[in-house]
Each structure stands twice: as C-alpha cells, then as structure tokens.
C-alpha cells in the first residue's frame, strides 16, 4: 500500500532564535554593552540550548526533569490518607478500579452508591477497569471486591501514583508538546522560546499538586482537550470532535470548555460562508463518538441478568420526569434506564449550589448574604443565568470569528465564567481555566512581562486557593516548594520582582508589552495578601466563634482575583479580535489603493 500523500510532511525548518526578530525575544536582556543575560531564571536553564540544540536532546531532558518533580511530589501524602471511614479521592479511584473489574457493567453505576459510587463518565470507568486489571497482575488483594476498602499498602500507593504519571505521559504530555509545536509555529515563535514555555507549562504547580499530590486524573481530561486544540490547529476538525468527546467522556468538567468548542465548530461551518456538509460531518462524528463511548455500557445492560439488576434500582429522576409511559418489557428499556442512571450520577443536580468553600462568586456572596434563604431551583436558575451572561461575549466572538488564535483566550474566559458563576463548583476546577491561560505563555509575546505577569499571578492565586485542601492532604511542603519554584523560575513574586521591573531595551523600535502600573499595583496587593494570609494562617489561631475565618478570607480574596483574571482574559480576547479586524481593514485599504 502506498503511503497517504499527506501523511508525510517534512518538518519545517525554523529560523534560529538569534537571527529572527520574533517578538518573543524578551528572553534575552541586552545591557547595552554587548553583554547578554537571561531575563528570568528559567531562561538560564535553557541558555545553552538557545543556539539550536536538537529537540531530540532537549525534549527528553525536559520530560525527565518535570517527571522527576512529579514523582517526588507523589512521595507525599494523598487525599484521605488515614482518614476512615470514607478516605478521599485516592480511595474513590481505587474503589472504581475494584468495582469495574469485579462487577458486570450494569452494576457499575448502581453498586453501593453510598461508598464512592461511580460518578464520572464512562471513559473514566473504562480507564479504571484497565488500571484495575493491570494492578491485579501485581497484587489481586489491592482490588479485592469489598475487602480492599480503605487499603493503604505502600506498594498500592506506588502503583496508583505510577498510573497517574503513566496516563499523563501517554495523553497529556504528547498532546501539549504537539500543541505547542504547532501553536508556536503558527505564531512564529522560535523553537527555543517554545522550549522555555513548555517547561513553564509542564511545571504548573496546581496541576502537579492536584494530580500527583492530592490524587486525581485531571491531566487525562486536560490532555484530551489539548489534543483537541492541536487537531483544530492542524485543521483536522473531526479529530478535534473525537478528542473533545474523549475529554467530556472522561470528566464532565470538560463542559467548561464545551460552549467555546461548540461556538467555534459552528462558526467555521457558517463563516465566511455556510458549509452544510462540514456541519453535517462534525455533528455526525460527534454523535458517533458519543455512541461509541457509551455503547459498551448499553450492551452491558441488555442481558437478562442486567435487566433484573437494573429494574431493582430506584428510577433515575430523569426518567421519572419523562412524560411518556415506558414499556418495561421492551428491549430498549434497560439501556435507557442505564443511560439515565449514568447521567443522573454524573450530574448531581440535587446537591447544593456550591460544595465546601470555593473561591467563586456564590461562595463569596454567601459570606455576606446567606443564600440558604432562597429555594434551590431559584438559585439554580440564577446561577445558570449568570453563567450564560458571563460566557455570552466570548462565545459570540469565537462564533463570529472562528480563528484558532482566539481559542486560548476564549477558552480561559469561558472557563473562568463557569468557575465563578456555575453550579456545584469544586476548588479543583480552577485547573480548567488555568490550562488555556497557561498555554498562552507559548503564544506570540507569551513570555513577555505582561502575559507572564498575568498568567503567573493567576496560577499562583489558583494554587493558593487550593492550599486549605492541600494542607489537609499533608501536602504543605510540596505546595510551598512547587509554587515557590515556579515563581522563582518565572521571575514572579514572592521570590522576585523581575516581572514588574521595567527594563531598558537598547532599541526602542519594538517595545514589548509590559504590565500597566495599575496591573502592577493590583498584583502586588494580591501577592502581599497571599503572603500575609499564610503568615496569619500559620501563626494566629482563628477567633473562637469563627473557626473557618481564614478559609473564608482565602475564598474572598481568591474570588476577587479570579474575577480579575476573567476580565483580563476577556479583554485579551476582545483586543486580539479588534487588532485582527484593524489589520484586515488595512490590508483591504492597501488592496484598494
């Protein structure tokens, strides 16, 4: 068979960073006397690579180095360690491996729901099944049905930690590396700057602390999203749909991104001219992908045994509300039952507006104005309305101008909107807006002081709002080490003020964006508040009547900061849109002349 003509494309040679005039050259500071110094410490570590050392050497070294930090964090505690009877996320994930390998599919979403019942979409269930099967090869007692609950074997910990890191290296890392390669190429960013951005992105403290410390598999979902973005950049829209369905099918939180993806994919079918076939293909592929995703579960619900089992559970609310009467003996009844049960498990509308203390708008308002007094349905509607209002502008922009370069700001804006205003937000959900925002570091001028200051600040704030959670898991030291290390490498407070210090460029021909004076003041206030909060939290016990005072303070500051981050992303998106519009205008004027 002859190879497909498009499957082989020679990799484009890019210019050496030293000769190109790319605007990302903010990495090298020229003191005007012919002496060049790295702008911030991370650049120093890749200093030797600036003359164009092969990616075959740089990339493995980067991946090994960031992998070492991940594994070192994973030596520390995890959520729910020695906290019977429920333990935490670690136990939940282990328990899912246990039930998926021992029970028929019809029982996956119904088995003993009080003890960490499966409440993630099917891909997580399949993933758990695979990991459980592999783990059983090492030691079956780790996943013995019911017997293994709350198991804390150190070897089990090593195995579970290894599954997180392997899943990440199989999905997240390749996706991000490929995305960056394409994205930087698109923006004319030199390879060297791309490597610097890659390290910054892969050392993002919040993701490492949650996945490898607290214990979750967020990077799998985030990896699918990155793969989907990569496919969009490559122009393979159908693959983008498939990957995005993968993300949704792994963790429902990917819904934060869904409006933008939807608006974008719809946009490319409508503008500049309506392409019905494309629209048809995209919707068809999406539907098929979803069908493939749930097919095994549906098949599992058809057999006679499954029929008995599923009939015994209480009717899922979704099915109860259906206006039509269902024929219980029909062949389709049990798959429908299964499907509605899965949906019911994944979207628990019955829970409150927010869980625990989370730095979003509702929790912040609740501090001053108790929201219990309203009915749950009213709150749900208000929350829905606020969320829709917050995502309307970015979605409209991305729909009207479906350009790949708008995706990152649009995704972060919408994800911030969801985080701030939607229903049932978890403090860990902050990873979602942080990912596209951090990926902006690789864009044109992404490592300039302005972007670096904002992205760095949002990440520091995001990790900081998770501190109460991380502290409970015994991750205090990894938290400080990873956040301070990241701040150090990127030249951020509290380690350094580099990013806010203006510097004299020898040639003023291309002034790089620097943070505005108001930005500087705002950020510094937030950094001061964070440092002050840590000092107070560590040394001053909260007043007697208010044991949660420090956490509430954390939430309030965090919510304010995230609101700012939302506004910045929105501003960035509008600004980009406006710039491109102006550029197009100029081009047309030139043509007309």
């Amino acid at each position: 068979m002859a190879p497909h003509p498009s499957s082989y494309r020679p990799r484009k040679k890019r210019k050496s960073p030293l000769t190109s005039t790319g605007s990302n050259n903010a990495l090298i500071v020229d003191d005007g006397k012919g002496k060049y110094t790295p702008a911030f410490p991370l650049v120093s570590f890749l200093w030797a690579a600036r003359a164009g050392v092969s990616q075959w050497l740089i990339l493995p070294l980067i991946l090994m180095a960031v992998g070492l930090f991940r594994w070192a964090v994973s030596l520390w505690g995890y959520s729910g360690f020695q906290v019977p009877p429920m333990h935490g996320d670690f136990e939940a994930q282990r328990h899912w491996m246990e039930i998926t390998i021992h029970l028929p599919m019809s029982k996956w979403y119904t088995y003993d729901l009080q003890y960490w019942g499966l409440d993630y979409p099917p891909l997580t269930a399949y993933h758990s099944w695979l990991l459980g099967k592999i783990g059983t090869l090492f030691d079956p007692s780790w996943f013995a049905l019911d017997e293994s609950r709350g198991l804390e074997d150190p070897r089990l910990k090593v195995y579970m930690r290894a599954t997180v890191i392997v899943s990440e290296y199989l999905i997240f890392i390749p996706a991000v590396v490929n995305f960056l390669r394409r994205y930087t190429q698109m923006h004319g960013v030199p390879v060297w700057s791309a490597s610097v951005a890659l390290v910054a992105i892969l050392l993002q403290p919040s993701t490492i602390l949650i996945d490898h410390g607290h214990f979750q598999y967020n990077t799998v979902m985030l990896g699918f999203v990155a793969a989907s973005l990569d496919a969009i950049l490559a122009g393979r829209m159908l693959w983008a749909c498939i990957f995005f369905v993968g993300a949704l099918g792994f963790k429902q939180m990917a819904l934060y991104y869904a409006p933008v993806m939807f608006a974008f994919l719809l946009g490319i079918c409508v503008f500049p001219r309506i392409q019905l076939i494309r629209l048809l293909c995209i919707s068809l592929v999406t539907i098929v992908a979803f069908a493939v995703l749930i097919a095994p579960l549906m098949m599992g619900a058809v057999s006679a045994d499954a029929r008995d089992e599923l009939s015994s559970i209480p009717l899922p609310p979704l099915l109860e509300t259906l206006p039509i009467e269902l024929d219980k003996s029909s062949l389709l009844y049990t798959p429908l039952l299964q499907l509605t049960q899965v949906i019911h498990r994944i979207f628990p509308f019955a829970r409150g507006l927010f869980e625990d203390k989370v730095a979003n708008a509702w929790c912040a308002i609740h501090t001053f104005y108790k929201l219990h007094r309203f009915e749950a349905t009213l709150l749900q509607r208000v929350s829905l309305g606020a969320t829709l209002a917050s995502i309307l502008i970015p979605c409209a922009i991305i729909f009207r101008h479906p350009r790949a370069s708008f995706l990152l700001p649009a995704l972060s804006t919408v994800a911030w909107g969801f985080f701030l205003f939607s229903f049932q937000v978890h403090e860990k959900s902050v990873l979602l807006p942080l990912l596209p925002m951090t990926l902006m570091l690789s864009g044109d001028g992404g490592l300039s002081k302005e972007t670096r200051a904002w992205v760095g600040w949002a990440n520091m704030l995001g990790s900081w709002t998770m501190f109460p959670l991380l502290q409970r898991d015994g991750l205090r030291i990894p938290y400080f080490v990873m956040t301070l290390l990241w701040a150090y490498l990127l030249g951020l407070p509290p380690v350094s003020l580099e990013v806010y210090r203006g510097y004299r460029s020898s040639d003023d021909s291309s002034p790089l964006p620097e943070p505005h004076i108001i930005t500087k003041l705002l950020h510094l206030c937030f950094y001061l508040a964070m440092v002050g909060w840590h000092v107070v939290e560590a040394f001053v016990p909260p007043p007697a009547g208010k044991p949660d005072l420090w956490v509430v303070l954390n939430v309030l500051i965090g919510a304010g900061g995230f609101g700012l981050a939302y506004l910045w992303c929105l501003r960035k998106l509008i600004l980009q849109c406006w710039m491109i519009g102006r550029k197009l205008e100029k081009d047309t004027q030139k043509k007309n002349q």
Partner: protein
Amino acid sequence: MLHVHYLPAFDSAPCGTAPMADIYPSLAQCAIVATAFKVLLFPAYKSTDFEVHRNWLAITHSLPVKEWYYEKTSEWTLDYPPFFAAFEWLLSQAAQYADPAMLIVKNLNYDSWQTVYFQRATVILSELFLVFALNRFIKSAPQSNKQLAHIASLSILLSPGLLIIDHIHFQYNGFMYGVLILSIVLARKQSTLLYSGIIFAILLCMKHIHLYLSLAYFVYLLRTYCLDPKSVFRPRFGNIFKLGLGVISVFGVAFGPFIYWNQLFQLKDRLFPFSRGLCHAYWAPNIWAMYSFTDRVLILLAPRLGLSINQEALTSVTRGLVGDTSFAVLPEVTKEYTFGLTFLFQVLPLIKLWRSPGDWDVFVGAITLCGYASFLFGWHVHEKAVLLIIIPFSLIALRDRRYFSAFRSLAIAGHVSLFPLLFTAAEFPIKTVYTVFWLVLFLFVFEQVAPVPERPRIFPVVDRFSLLYLAVAIPLIVYCSLLHQLIFGLERYEFLPLMFMSSYSALGVVGSWIGFMVVYFTA
C-alpha cells in the same frame, strides 16, 4: 538519530564580539532548583544510616566527650573520627529545638517527622559548603578554562551519586566532598598550599576514608611545598615547620583529648573494624567482585576442568549476599594481599607526581588514581566509596577528550553500581530517571566542550569500548530491576541481578582505570 548542530552551545554570548560573559545556569541557580527537588525527597526511603546519624546526635548531645567512643546502647556506635562527632554535636545544638526526643540515646529507631525533616535539612544545608568549594574551584580556574570548570562544577553539584547517597540513603558526603574539593583547589596556588594541607588534615579527622588519598597529598606537599621545586636536596625548613605545626595541631586538637584520657586504642578499634569481610554486603564493583564472579563461574566449570572445590565455601557462596565471602575454587584473599596491591597501585602514579612538582593536574590525577587503587583493591570496600574516584576525576575530566573518554565509563559504571543501595519501588523511578538524566545531559555536554587533545589518542579502542559498554547498560538495568523478578520471582536467585550489576560495573570501573592510567602516564 541525534541531529546535533555542532554550534558553540556553551559559547558565552550570541555575538562573537562580546567579552567573556557569565555562564548560565549559574551554580546558585542550579543549587536552588536542586534544593527544591531534595526537599521534596524528605519522605523518601532512608537507610539505617539515618538511625546511625540520629544515634550520633543523641550520643554527642547527651554524653560527655569521654564516653562518646564507649557508648554502645545502639548497634550503630560512633565510628567516625572526632571532628565529625563534633559536627554532630553542633547539629544537636539545633536539633533540640526541632525535637528533643531524637537526642535521647535510648530512643532507638526514633523517626518523628520533625526528626526526619531536621536531619534531611541538615544534609541540604551542610551541602552549601560544597557549593562554596565549587565556586572557589571555578574562580581558581584560569580565564580560558572558566567555562569548563563551571560545567564540571555543575556536574558535581547535581551528581546522582550525592543525590542517591546523601538525600535518599542518608549521609553527609556532599559536605565532606566540599571540604576535599576546597583543599584540592587551595593546592592550586603555591601561596595557599599550606591551607590545603591543613584542610586535608581536618578532613581526615572527619572521615578517615580519605586516608586512601593521603599518600598523594603527602607526596605532593612534600615535593612542592617542603622541598625546593628545582632540587630535591634543598629542603625549605620554614615551610616544613609551618606545615608540620599546622597538621600536628589539627591532629592534636582532634585526638589530643582522647590520648590524654588514654582512649586511643578504643578509638582505633572503633574507626578500623577489621573483623569485616573482603566484600561488602552488596559487592562494590571492584577487582574482588570480578574475582568472586570468576569463582562462581568456575564452580560450574570445575567438574569439567577437574578443579577441586572447597565444599565449605560452596554453601555460603550460593547465598550471594553474605558479608564474609569465601571462595570455592580460587585461592582465598587475605588482608595483606589487598593492602599490598592497593599500595602498589598507589605508588606507581605517585612516582610521576614526585617528578612533576607544582603540576596541579598531575596532583588531581594522582588523587584520582589513589582513589581507584583503594576502591579496586581495598578490603571491605563500600560501593559508596566510588565517589572518592568520581569527584576528584570530575575536576579534570574536561582537560581533553582522552580524559573524558576514561571518565565516561566510570560515570556510567559508578552511578549504576549505586542502584542497589535503593531497593524500594517508590525510589526506583527517581534513581534511574535522575541518573539517566544526568548521564545524558553531562555526557553530551562534556562531549561538546572537551577540547581536542594535543596528542592523538593512543587507544581509539577505548572509545569503542565505552560505546559498547553504554549500550549494554540499558538492557542490563531493565533485566535486573524488572525482568528478573518477572522470570524468577522475588525470592529465587536474588543474588543474580546483584552479581550481574556489580560485575558489569566492575568492568566499567576497571576499564576506565586502565584508560586513565594510560592517559596519566602519557600526558
């Protein structure tokens, strides 16, 4: 394949006109990032050495000096020289604020998190001395070699050997190699030679394993400092007096009180426990590991060759992990043999050192070869002692490509041989990935920057050898750490991977030793 642009990757500035610029990443930057990583390793596996040092903290803190070397509540009695005990005493002054319970002699195997954090932190903090010494080393290098010195310093600072032994297994090598490096650096200039000698004497009073290097110091100081460089027959009495006074007063301070209390024999027994066997529990990769391996092979072949087998030894041989090795076919090795061989192979390079007064490179080469001789032929050698070769060698490995090619197989073998020190699953990725990271990074960079030798290479074969050697490393590690367990399970033939590893590493160390001997004598 690697497509490497042979650009001056470590060149100082983007355009050639610039003056000598600073080199990045700087020592401090690397130290900061490495420290972050080491702090994350706090909860990692720790060996009995952790308890050893905790016990010493307790002994030095709660007992009068007189009883330090008599105390034996714990099996890990104090067996380092007095200055190290004083160092522990110093640490114990701070330890009482972290957790006073660790300072109670009877609290055996006490490891509260405060104790762990405290002891791990002292290792990291004391390693700052290494950073200081390396900084002095870079400063002492001539301007044209600054960049090479910088790279060599980074390789020592980030050494996987120090990471594995100090920050996971638990010891204070980083600090003590810092003292050694400082002493070597001070030997570079005639004006600071005296301090070099005194600091080496202090080092001897901290860890007596450095006695193995003392002959090189003795010859160098005698020839370069005490005698006139131009003529052997013109002693410089002033210098002899100064050095003698300095060294004697260091030893006087260290051992004087114990001599006064008549405890010298007790100290000798503690510091030199000769009752141990030829090979350490895990075989260090030296001549005796190869000897044992040959013996084991001969057991299998003996019936065919008609050799007689010592049946008594056979039972112990198959266990493989015993400290007291005895040989079934080959003749026994006595302490006298090992001392004789060590001495012989130390004296050979010293002859050249004697004949080249004031040549610092030869001096460091001689130190390295003394380290080699003691490691390869010594009695009861620890695998950790391989740092005694690697660290001095790193200082001169970038002299030119011939040095580097001898260094390469040592770097691989020496670090791989440390793997058995950590046998827990959680630390496996750290030791392997970190070592591979270091090897890839530094062997590549060394390859790029090592200057071409003035004289052509005598043995291009050495290069082929080291390449082949490198190629074997990966399948061997995979076999020893994964495949063996899958094939034979955890219990059966557990000595096999260890034997393969140490024989393989021994081959590398011996190969690099021969290679370096050739380079040393022909340079």
